[in-house]
């Protein structure tokens, strides 16, 4: 379902200590922020190649992951490139709009260039960490970094149960679609509302069952992380 989670277990560095991975991540981030744009672009390529090699995945798959945040990034960059001014001379290219000129600004182009490569390099570094750090190692890392225990427990339980929730939502959605619940727009809204309320009651039911199990397993308020 969320295949991305599974990938970290097939990483060539799956068993490398999480602390070493985290240290390397900090180094990657520092470089991603401090290198000049050309360096950042090269760094991005290296990180992408490293990630693909470690995970044994093809570049196309990697690009698809990158495409998700790329959309947001491009919109952000475009707004930096364009600016408005009273004076057509201050812009490289411009179109008049009332008493303003809207166009490409040299300064903006520079900033956009920096932002674009820096974000991508930082993104590649973060992808590298996420894709190479299996969940149990993340928990170890959080503990070593002295993240409050309650929060770590919360993360662990959320991670475990998010899959169950998604599975159930998917099953309900499938059953509704098979009975044409999403054929029209008003119907879709009704079905979605039903899905949410059903999910809610199921969550409560599950909560009850799990409290029973915790009782039977002699739970004393601690998950022993």
């Amino acid at each position, binding site marked *: 379902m969320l295949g991305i989670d599974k990938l970290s277990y097939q990483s060539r560095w799956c068993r490398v200590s999480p602390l070493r991975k985290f240290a390397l991540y900090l180094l990657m981030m520092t470089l991603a922020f401090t290198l000049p744009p050309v360096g950042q672009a090269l760094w991005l390529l290296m990180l992408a190649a490293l990630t693909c090699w470690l995970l044994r995945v093809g570049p196309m798959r990697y690009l698809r992951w990158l495409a998700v945040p790329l959309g947001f990034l491009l919109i952000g960059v475009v707004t930096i490139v364009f600016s408005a001014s009273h004076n057509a001379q201050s812009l490289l290219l411009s179109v008049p709009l009332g008493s303003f000129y809207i166009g490409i600004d040299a300064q903006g182009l520079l900033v956009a260039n920096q932002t674009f490569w820096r974000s991508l390099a930082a993104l590649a570094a973060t992808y590298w960490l996420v894709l190479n750090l299996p*969940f*149990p190692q993340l928990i170890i890392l959080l503990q070593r970094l002295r993240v409050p225990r309650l929060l770590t427990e919360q993360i662990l339980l959320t991670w*475990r149960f998010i899959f169950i929730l998604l599975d159930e939502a998917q099953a309900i959605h499938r059953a509704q679609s098979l009975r044409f619940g999403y054929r029209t727009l008003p119907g879709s809204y009704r079905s979605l509302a039903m899905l949410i309320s059903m999910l809610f009651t199921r969550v409560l039911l*599950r909560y009850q*069952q799990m409290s029973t199990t*915790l009782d039977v397993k*002699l*739970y004393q308020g601690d998950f*022993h992380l």
Partner: protein
Amino acid sequence: MLSTQNLSFCYQDDTVLHGLNFDFGASPVTGIVGKNGCGKSTLFMNLNGVLRPQQGAVLWQGKAINYTKAGLIEHRQRVTTVFQDPEQQIFYTDIDSDIAFSLRNLGVDEAKIARRVERAIELVDAQSFRHKPIQYLSHGQKKRVAIAGALVMEADYLLLDEPTAGLDPSGRQQMIEIIARITEQGKHVVISSHDIDLIYEVCDRVYVMNGGKIVAAGEPGAVFSQADMLREAGLVQPWLVKLHSQLGFPLCKTETQLFDALRVAKEAG
């Protein structure tokens, strides 16, 4: 030994169990069969102390169990439960921590925990997927992890609620082998199930429940030969018993036994 005496339980005004007497110590594997809603799950919840009967009692060594916090912790170390839905009872994302959970709750030392987890994993044959994250296991594998999580307590009694529900034929066969391995260690297993063929094959003693009452009890061959009683309880006869009662085949406990008997008869004839 675990037994009940005149056990009655009601949810609000609805009596679910009517004065039941069970003796789970009498045989290694006890089966409880009955249609949906006959009170099997409620019975299990009474046996592990989650629910408290209004009348009668759940007995351990002939004494009613103690419902204080300490009393229940003691009781649940002797009687462990595996529920039908494995998702309900697995809390971690890795198998080892999950199996160790109840021992850690008791504060058992780590060396002992490691030994016991190892043994439990061996018993349910989970070595091959031990390092996989739980969300990627199959339903049958999750079920085995849930059983290991109970076995790790090395309790005298294991309550299994629908152990074969949703399993494929090979998963079901594995479950039968797991139950055999548990009883080899001198433990008792109580199984509640709709899988009438399973109950017939693995149990030494069965109880048939209907509407919160015990309608038959005893040795499986004898109980399952009462076709009318079973029909009334919403059940059917095991296929091996049907072959015996309707076609006069020898009454065998397992398929292998029947085939061996038939082969011998064929060679002789």
